[in-house]
């Protein structure tokens, strides 16, 4: 018991632990924010996982050809948007089942990234290392003891993710567009009678989700490890989906949910490697359960009922 407390103390007083928390949170955060954008306008986007995968892949491809990681990162915005457009098109224009369309996109992304590897890189499975977006040091911040070490030096993408939370919050709650988005997700008919273009707003929401989720994927590849590996997103899109629901379809809520998950993940990593805890090696994998159990407990015990936008998942049928 003493040892557990000691190990926890050790972890929480280590500034690098917080840094690790942030990098674990970031990819989820992008995708969860994407989910918020899409679902707040009433379109369920289960395809986050697929979009992330595509983003992870194409950021590497573009970097591979141009040698510029930033180009690689930015290029996934149009790619994510273009890809998710199919989902938007199917669910908005054709009033398709959004869950089915979303799962289709996941398969297509998995197939496409796996397939393109050979023609582009001449090798299947994983791409060569193409370089990474370097970390930056924030001049003033990094001088502060502890805090500086924890958040002063980071991948700029981490800062971007947190800035985007603010951006999303302002956009959704402080601008006319945001008001319309919320209205469309809640009662598209009412918005329509006021001359709000329901379809356009929904397209906007879904396409934003494509851009954001793709950036989340890009962070995984050229933001973190510098190459692409088949299926490297490892289910993060689904975790992001859960985080978005847990965060009650709200950017700040999503941030908190992602942080909760990211921190539990970092904690699991830290504790299982801790020299203070004498855990038999065979039991160590059980540490990896930690973030999932924490989330389950939080959703069951603390959060409970969350309320989706009323028209979430329901195609809007306009009389012709």
């Amino acid at each position, binding site marked *: 018991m003493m040892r557990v407390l000691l190990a926890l103390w050790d972890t929480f007083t280590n500034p690098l632990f917080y840094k690790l928390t942030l990098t674990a949170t970031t990819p989820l955060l992008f995708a969860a924010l994407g989910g918020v954008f899409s679902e707040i306008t009433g379109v369920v986007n289960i395809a986050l996982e697929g979009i992330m995968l595509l983003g992870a892949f194409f950021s590497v491809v573009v970097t591979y050809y141009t040698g510029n990681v930033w180009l690689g990162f930015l290029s996934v915005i149009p790619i994510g948007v273009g890809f998710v457009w199919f989902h938007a098109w199917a669910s908005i224009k054709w009033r398709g089942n959004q869950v089915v369309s979303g799962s289709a996109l996941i398969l297509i992304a998995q197939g496409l990234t796996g397939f393109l590897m050979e023609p582009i890189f001449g090798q299947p499975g994983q791409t060569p290392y193409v370089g990474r977006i370097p970390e930056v040091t924030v001049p003033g911040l990094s001088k502060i003891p502890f805090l500086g070490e924890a958040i002063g030096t980071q991948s700029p993408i981490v800062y971007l993710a947190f800035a985007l939370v603010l951006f999303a919050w302002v956009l959704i709650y402080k601008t006319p567009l945001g008001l319309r988005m919320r209205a469309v997700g809640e009662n598209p008919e009412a918005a329509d009678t006021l001359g709000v273009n329901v379809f356009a707003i929904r397209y906007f929401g879904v396409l934003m989700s494509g851009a954001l989720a793709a950036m989340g994927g890009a962070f995984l590849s050229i933001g973190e490890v510098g190459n692409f590996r088949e299926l490297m997103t*490892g289910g993060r899109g689904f975790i992001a989906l859960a985080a978005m629901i847990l965060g009650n379809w709200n950017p700040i809520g999503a941030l908190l949910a992602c942080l909760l998950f990211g921190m539990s993940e970092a904690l699991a990593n830290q504790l299982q490697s801790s020299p203070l805890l004498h855990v038999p090696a*065979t039991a160590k994998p059980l540490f990896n359960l930690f973030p999932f159990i924490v989330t389950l407990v939080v959703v069951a015990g603390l959060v409970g009922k969350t309320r989706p936008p009323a028209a979430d998942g329901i195609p809007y049928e306009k009389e012709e």
Partner: protein
Amino acid sequence: TDVGGLGDKSFNDGTWAGIQRAVKELNIEAKVIQSYEQSDYIPNLSKAAEEADLVFAVGFMMTDALFRVARQYPKTLFVGIDITPPKGQTFPNVLTFTFKEQECAFLVGYLAAAMTKTGTVGFVGGIPIPPVERFRYGFEAGVKTYNTLYRKNVKVLRGYTQDFEDPKKGKDLAMSQFNQGADIVFHASGACGNGVIEAARERFSALTKSSNLVDFINYYLENNRGFFAIGVDMDQDYMAPGAVLASAMKRVDTASYLAVTWAYEGTFKGGHMVLGIAEAGVGISPMKYTKGIVPNRVIAELVYLEKLMKEGTLKVPETQEELDAFKVPTIRFPF
């Protein structure tokens, strides 16, 4: 292949490389079928058995499927890589290979213990399946040996990603080991290892403010500090020159190459082979980039330890029990 598929930089790729080599030399034809899921193994192997004379089943997950199919096609030859035959199942048409991962891991463990400046090294495993665990046993035994010989107390941090596909997870786990004082991390975690290697590069270049080999080496020599990963399965030193200290190699390609040649020459015999240092089935990478920073004495010791293993005088633990019971033999280096 198993569901991992080609491009795993591990046994699937390795096997295929060995086959390719044989194909070129012997001028025969080879095809690869990749499986999506467990339930593909039997049909895919069956189809392969109908079309080919020699069929490779790669990966421990194919064990059951291999033996079921082999029984049905007694005229086709089968090779299992990383496969141990179930008790009592030996067919004349099936040859299986496993490897003494612990032997190469012993060498890198010894190396890590000799090189660490913080007195702490790390191990990142994927899923604790036997090959991964054998890597760990060897690694820990290597560290222990160094500790005993030099009265040091180098600690080993251990963690598992519980995954072989997710490099980010590997990176995060390696990072948390670096955070806890490790400066060298050995991984046996498939593609998660890309992340482990990247973690070393990131930490090292945070010191050097650059990530090229020369700066790494110079920094290390000047400051006597650095961060390193140790690769696995293939020679992964090139993946981050200077930040990968060495790799514990498992020569799957040797196995597949040999099998093809034997089959071609008609000397194919069923059974099970365990390839170790002595058979050149495993080994430590030549440390193309980092040899310069490893003291000559350590290199010499590694060579000597290798020799002991070949001779059979040094037996590296292969199971947890053996590891627990492992008594470092008295080794007197002849220099």
